[in-house]
């Protein structure tokens, strides 16, 4: 999956000469935690987040706080934020978030800002990847970690008229054992489960004792 498939293309932006107060207002109005700073050519020149806003004024000096917010946002913004390209892989972007502890990743083509991905977008995408948002039943099968296992299961499922929405493979404590989780588009998975068990597959289900 590419970044351009999940990024927001409508970005909330401001000019470096705009005030910090304007950044605060944008965050409140759009309920966001970051504002992207661009120049007249729509090139990314900075990023300002809640942390930068908070560092701009002190709770112990309320008399000057209002005044402080009139400084230009360029005085507090992160000047060269970590960015990514729209054709980067989602996995690479996830690693950037993880390694740099990011909360927001501007997406840049040339120098122009074309989109933004936040940690919320990333999490939503991962939830989508599990298939949990579409009506389905989950079937979990404990399998040996060898070639051809998935094909055997898929061949059995293909004989029914039931659509597979999603497949995830989880590791277990035992390196030779994996759990394959299928999300199938049916309310009645009984026939599939019986078929799998008949073929000797270890189909997991709710357990009364554990």
């Amino acid at each position, binding site marked *: 999956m590419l970044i351009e498939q999940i990024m927001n293309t409508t970005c909330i932006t401001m000019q470096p000469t705009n005030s910090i107060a304007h950044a605060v207002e944008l965050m409140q109005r759009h309920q966001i935690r970051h504002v992207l700073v661009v120049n007249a050519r729509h090139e990314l020149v900075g990023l300002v987040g809640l942390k930068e806003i908070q560092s701009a004024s002190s709770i112990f000096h309320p008399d000057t706080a209002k005044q402080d917010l009139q400084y230009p946002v360029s005085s507090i913004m992160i000047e060269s934020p970590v960015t990514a390209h729209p054709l980067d892989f989602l996995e690479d972007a996830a690693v950037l978030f993880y390694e740099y502890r990011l909360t927001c990743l501007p997406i840049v083509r040339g120098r122009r800002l074309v989109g933004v991905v936040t940690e919320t977008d990333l999490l939503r995408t991962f939830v989508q990847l599990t298939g949990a948002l579409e009506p389905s039943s989950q079937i979990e099968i404990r399998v040996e970690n060898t070639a051809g296992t998935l094909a055997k299961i898929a061949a059995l499922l293909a004989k029914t008229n039931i659509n597979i929405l999603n497949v995830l493979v989880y590791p277990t404590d035992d390196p030779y054992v994996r759990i394959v989780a299928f999300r199938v588009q049916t309310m009645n998975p*009984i026939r599939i489960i019986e078929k799998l068990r008949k073929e000797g597959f270890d189909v997991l289900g709710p357990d*009364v004792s554990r």
Partner: protein
Amino acid sequence: MKDFAYLYSPEEATYRFSETHPFNPIRLELTVSLLEAMHQLDDIPCIAPRHATDEELSLVHDQDYIAAVKAAGTGALTPLKAQMYGLGTEDTPLFQGMHSGASLLVGGTIEACDLVLSGQYKRTFHIGGGLHHGFRGRASGFCVYNDTAVAMAAMIEKYHCKILYVDTDAHHGDGVQWAFYNRKDVMTLSLHETGRYLFPGTGMVTERGSEEGYGFSWNVPLDAFTEDDSFLLAYETALFEACELFQPDLIITQNGADAHALDPLTHLSLTMKSYEQIPQIAVAAANKYTNGKIVALGGGGYDWYRVVPRAWSQVFAAMTGQAPFHGEIPTSWQKRWSGQETPPPTHWHDPTPLYPTIPRRPEIEEKNWETVKRLIWPFVSDERKKQLTATSPYSID
């Protein structure tokens, strides 16, 4: 105002996928014949459902979906296009007259609601209704049209009322929830088995509604092997707190009977004890909050002979203001339905023990109560929290 009427006609059996499909209209016949054998239907008005109009259906469903369902019932829909609408699948296979059968169930539920809101009856029961998985433009989970969602939309348009929808089917009432997710005139409350293994996988506590509807979508996902006491505590608590918050004009209950321990599709462990109490508690809530106005619907339930007829007859008992039926089941009914794969039940209650003891019981009960607390805590006063905590058998704090 008369007290009660039920909606049923043998024509509703035309909503039928196949001989072996779990959602079988024989369940309606089994229930009505049991009530007949109990001489319960002698003086009770029975109203035959009508078909919903296209205009009514389109209050919830997309035009192109309605057209596809019509085409599907005449064999004019290509398999690829059918798949797009969730039709012709293992769950909702095509059958002759699909639109006619499905729209009859919708019309029945609209009538059931209209009879109550127009003041002709206090309580109605549409046994064939409760198809809670139907989506705007897609069939899902044995449901083509969403009778309840259409009826609620029609009632709100006509009466500008607030409706509380209460769903005790073992599966999450997703179709109804999503249809009104951003609205404040419908509140949905669904109790169901968690989506860990069970269809449709949604129905988490965190699905609370959006925009104006925030706070008016309530979900209680219950652990597999949940038993009567834990279920009833969660149900009664959530139902009355929902009524307190929402102050509905009408309560609609979906009475799926598939959370029973004998049901083949799910993993909950209720017995008839729950199915005696669920409708009684709903009627009590209606008496307290809606001047008694309540509409009951059927729903899921896949042990056709042993569970569904008894469960739905107990809904009938509560809706007619009677105590739950008890003792022996009329032998004439038992005889009529003998010779099936599973013999018909002999008593209204289940034999004990119905299933082996569940070793995880304390853990399940505690977990379910924590779930109820997570759901309702943001909406109840500190005083009420103290009361609930004091009366709950599972609280540690």
